[in-house]
């Protein structure tokens, strides 16, 4: 916890009441979930597929610069749609209620080098359950960065603005490595673990397929446009990676977002879990296009409270959630994309250096520092 706990003013009863009020918001959406929502995701999927087809078609002629530009832009958008509004949300089970085996968390595979199965484990299970708990939620800096004062500093962190930049460019590979828990698993003993090997193999297979498609097959199909098509797909992947990295950084890293200690979640009640999600997430404000292109992760707070509600509902839910923040006098961290990205990056830079001398410390933390 940061020095001053922004939830200090809430009593245990208030926190449980807050939990009940959030449950009621969830129930309301579930009761009303139906045909319109199903039509929405179907429409988005079909639009994404058409856009990808057309863009790849245009890229067959990418030897002509306007075609290159158009095709690359289209493919970038298609890839972003695939990962954000479609893949991320389907893999959360947001559309499982439709019972359509083609749009289901158990069958969906996305345009990403991390196989859906592994990502679901590290993201849905670890990250969403242990949001912002130091040592439990690996999303907190992805194991390569220090994003909170409470994380231990190491000289390695001096380079973290660079690591973060590289991670942004090759974000999907970063995620795959992270899903594999590469850092932890690469030591001699664990490397041989058959379960890890099977998972590493699956990632290898997925990478091979993705690379073959983007950098061999499609360029080859373009004939004389081989090189421009190759450059186009590379660019589209780069754009998608940087975009999703930025959006995701905005979810939990901007100033004002809280992190939690391991022991603070022991015996956590439902209300306390909700509260942690509220304090551990941040939104991006903007128009409908922003919400759509971020896969509605611009509503990160709402997404973390209700990860399985259909994404198209977060906007309406946000109004009610925000009212609860006000009612309980909590800070709803939000801001336009550039501001949030800047804020997150500033933190990455700031925390690449060791903490400045402590100002106000809770006794709790003093102990921790001593222990460290």
């Amino acid at each position, binding site marked *: 916890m940061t020095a001053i706990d922004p939830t200090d003013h809430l009593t245990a009863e208030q926190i449980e009441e807050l939990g009940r009020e959030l449950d009621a918001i969830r129930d309301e959406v579930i009761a009303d979930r139906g045909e319109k929502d199903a*039509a929405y995701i179907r429409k988005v999927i079909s639009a994404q597929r058409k856009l990808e087809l057309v863009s790849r078609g245009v890229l067959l002629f990418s030897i002509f610069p306007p075609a290159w530009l158009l095709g690359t832009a289209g493919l970038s958008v298609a890839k972003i749609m695939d990962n954000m509004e479609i893949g991320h949300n389907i893999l959360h089970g947001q559309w*499982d209620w439709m019972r359509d085996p083609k749009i289901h968390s158990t069958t969906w595979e996305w345009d990403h080098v991390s196989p859906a199965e592994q990502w679901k484990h590290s993201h849905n299970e670890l990250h969403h359950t242990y949001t912002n708990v130091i040592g439990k939620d690996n999303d907190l800096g992805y194991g390569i960065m220090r994003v909170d004062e409470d994380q231990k500093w190491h000289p390695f962190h001096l380079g973290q603005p660079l690591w973060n930049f590289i991670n942004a460019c090759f974000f999907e590979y970063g995620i795959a490595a992270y899903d594999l828990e590469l850092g932890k698993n690469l030591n001699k003993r664990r490397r041989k673990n058959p379960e890890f090997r099977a998972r590493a193999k699956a990632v290898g297979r997925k990478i091979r397929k993705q690379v073959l498609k983007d950098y061999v097959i499609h360029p080859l*199909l373009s004939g004389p446009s081989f090189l421009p098509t190759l450059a186009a797909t590379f660019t589209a992947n780069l754009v998608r990676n940087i975009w999703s990295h930025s959006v995701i950084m905005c979810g939990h890293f901007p100033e004002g977002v809280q992190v939690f200690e391991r022991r603070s979640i022991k015996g956590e009640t439902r209300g306390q879990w909700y509260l942690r999600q509220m304090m551990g997430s941040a939104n991006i404000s903007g128009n409908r296009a922003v919400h759509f292109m971020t896969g509605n992760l611009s509503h990160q707070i709402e997404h973390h409270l209700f990860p399985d509600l259909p994404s198209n509902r977060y906007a309406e839910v946000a109004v009610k959630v925000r009212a609860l923040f006000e009612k309980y006098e909590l800070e709803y961290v939000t801001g336009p994309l550039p501001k949030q990205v800047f804020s997150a990056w500033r933190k990455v830079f700031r925390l690449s250096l060791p903490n400045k001398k402590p100002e106000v410390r809770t006794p709790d933390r003093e102990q921790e520092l001593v222990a460290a």
Partner: protein
Amino acid sequence: MTSATLRSRAWKLLEMVTTPLLPSDYLDLVSPLRAGADLRGRIEAVHPETGDAATVVIRPGRGWRGHTAGQYVRVGVDVDGVRLWRAYSITSPTNRQDGRVTITVKAIPDGKVSNHLVRRVKPGMLIQLDQATGDFVLPQAKPAKVLYLTAGSGITPVMGMLRDIEFDDVVMVHCAPQPQDVIFRSELHDLVAAEKLRLTEVHTATDGMLDIARLDELVPDWAERETWACGPAGLLDAAEKHWSEHGVQERLHTERFRPSIVVAGDGGEVTFSATGKTVDADGATPLLDVGEEAGVLMPSGCRMGICFGCITPLKAGAVRDLRTGEITEAEPGVLIQTCVSAAAGPCDIER
């Protein structure tokens, strides 16, 4: 290289082009009824039959293998965005020229799918199909005398037979509450007028339920007839008893519509069918805990309903969502989150 291997290589290449999706995911956008696609059908028309029954005309996809008179087809219909599967008898003859098939649906009170099909579907909508199936069909050799004994929507598979093949001597006894509830009534009366059918209507609202002993009087030679009976369980049970008491049970063919009647209770006996374990569960303990307690290896994750890491097929029975109270009944393809679901009556979990 044979053309088959050539084709499979070309397909492999195409899969590399479309990975991680399949070529069919793209083809479905333009041609959902093509050969090789998952079997679907397009609704082309809906004709009302009675106040609460309608015939739905379906153009099946190219993969449709046809049907035999009397068979049924399972259809998957999206109702309020949720795909639900139900079986309906095919009422069109097998030789229909335009290749369409029809099902005739009676809206049952609170029936989600039947009401949707009778009252809400519009031409142009897609539905999912299975191949036709069922052994409530006519034999290869033509019987000399036939009796059709039907009640309510039990007339639908028989109508498929009537329209398909003409017999020399056909009698039908059909029960419905009132004359206007008789599905296909005018067509039946046309057949009677053309002397192709002898028909007895039993109007149960005025005459009361058909007493099977009355058959002697309605169809004196019933025991000599090859009989197809379809209707509510009560009628069929009585018929089976009657036929076997007279030692002619091999002449009786029955078809039971099984509207899965699940009585949602509070807790119940839980079967883990893959492991072969059965335990009693209360209505408040998550099935994940119930299974683990019983030593069944259950997949799990967050244990609080957010990660979908615990979803498991529900093969039979019903479960209650502990958060919303919502009841989910077993149907093919239904998956439940075991960490937030409890037994609502006996159920079968595939673990």
